[in-house]
């Protein structure tokens, strides 16, 4: 009998520990001064934010103080990273700008864009979410593939705003279809994630090893779901009109457009 009770208690402790480990807890809020962040990236251990309203990129320290500023962009959105280069989709200029070692440039030989909202690279692969053409352009290392088109059916988009690549798949924030869509690297539709969560504008995504993070912009929430579409956590604390997130040093960073706050969570 004692054994049974012990096993039962141990099981409870195990389940409780597992649950605790799964939940992201708010660690701190980094208040920004006149920055309305949309995208974020870490370059050389420095946190960079795109500030769409002010047409600039800023590099901030742990206290939110701006340490470096890059100006003269036209509505920079979900920024990406390629080795030591920041990639900046310029929504108002229809280009992907680059910033490497203090120099600005442009990504060349890319398809014609109309309001690029997100960019992501993995090795030689590049993916661009193009808002007004309802298209994701994917460069597989040799050619560009065109994925999507306007619509609500599987494989179609209603204004894609962000894109993420894993080793096997392409994840797309299908913002106004309120879901995330997954494609294989040949551009074939694989599955939909997050469609059951009541999301209103899935504007940003981040893909970790086993989890997908989705911003629910209008409802001010961040969802953490498994790649099998099981809800792991709904984060609402310190979230106000979130647009993007990433995991760095085992901490989750969420940028909040409306409040101008970077919320940091840990497990």
């Amino acid at each position, binding site marked *: 009998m004692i054994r049974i009770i012990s096993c039962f208690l141990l099981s409870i402790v195990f389940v409780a520990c597992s649950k605790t480990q799964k939940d992201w807890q708010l660690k701190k809020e980094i208040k920004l001064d006149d920055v*309305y962040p*949309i995208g974020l990236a870490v370059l050389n251990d420095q946190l960079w934010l795109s500030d*769409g*309203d002010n047409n600039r990129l800023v590099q901030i320290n742990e206290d939110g103080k701006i340490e470096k500023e890059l100006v003269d962009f036209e*509505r920079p*959105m979900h920024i990406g990273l390629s080795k030591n280069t920041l990639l900046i989709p310029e*929504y*108002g200029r229809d280009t992907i700008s680059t910033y490497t070692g203090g120099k600005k440039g442009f990504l060349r030989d890319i398809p014609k864009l109309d*309001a690029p*909202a997100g960019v992501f690279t993995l090795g030689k692969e590049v993916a661009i979410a193009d*808002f*007004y053409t309802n298209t994701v352009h994917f460069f597989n290392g040799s050619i560009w593939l065109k994925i999507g088109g306007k619509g609500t059916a599987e494989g179609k988009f*209603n*204004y894609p*705003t962000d894109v993420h690549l894993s080793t096997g798949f392409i994840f797309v924030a299908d*913002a*106004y279809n*309120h*879901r995330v869509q997954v494609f294989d690297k040949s551009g074939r539709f694989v599955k939909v994630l997050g*469609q059951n969560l*009541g*999301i*209103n*504008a899935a*504007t940003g995504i981040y893909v970790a090893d086993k989890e997908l993070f989705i911003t629910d*912009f*209008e*409802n001010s929430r961040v969802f953490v779901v498994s790649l099998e579409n099981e809800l792991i956590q709904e984060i609402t604390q310190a979230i106000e*009109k979130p*647009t993007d997130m990433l995991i760095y040093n085992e901490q989750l960073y969420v940028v909040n*457009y409306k409040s101008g706050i970077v919320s940091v969570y840990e497990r």
Partner: protein
Amino acid sequence: MMKKIISSLLISILFILTAVAQKPMDKFEIQVDGLGCPFCAYGLEKKFKEFKGIKQVQIEIQTGDFKFEYPSEKQLTMDAIVNQVKKAGYTPKTAKIIRSNGGVEALEVPLKSNTDSDQLVTEIVNVKGNCQMCKARIESAALATKGVDKAIWDVETKMLEVAFDRKQISVKKIAKNIALAGHDAAKITAPKEVYEALPVCCYYNNPNLKTH
């Protein structure tokens, strides 16, 4: 001789630059309902950049205030502005053009029509919608109906409180006008093509959308 040529050339360039710099510009001030998402606001800005020659574009996402300048010689009309705002998926709340010659043109959502206060009645009507953009559209459609004195739609309850002159108009006619703007009102269904032309965040028949 050479000096004279260079001087003339420089004077000509200066003259042209001055002429360009002094090109008369009209000023435009628009207030748009429903902005709030940067992707939407920047989209509105992008649509207006289709007007070649647009200058001094300023957009305040929080307030919905949108300003720009445009060459007077192109005579950009109020209708063109309203259509462009709608093309971007929004509802203009107010718009003002200050012409370079001092003339002012204004577009206001009517707040009140000529009504007889003795004949005013207030009714509550169920109107389908989702968001602040829907609210602006529903109230504008109601207030644009002759005989309507007041129209306030509640985003949460989906109820429209409408005060109207019962001698001029009926609640059924008001509901019909709202339906024609894209929103099912009372038991009148909006035309399919009008509903489908609404901005995606206004798709009230989409169960995924929540009020915002």
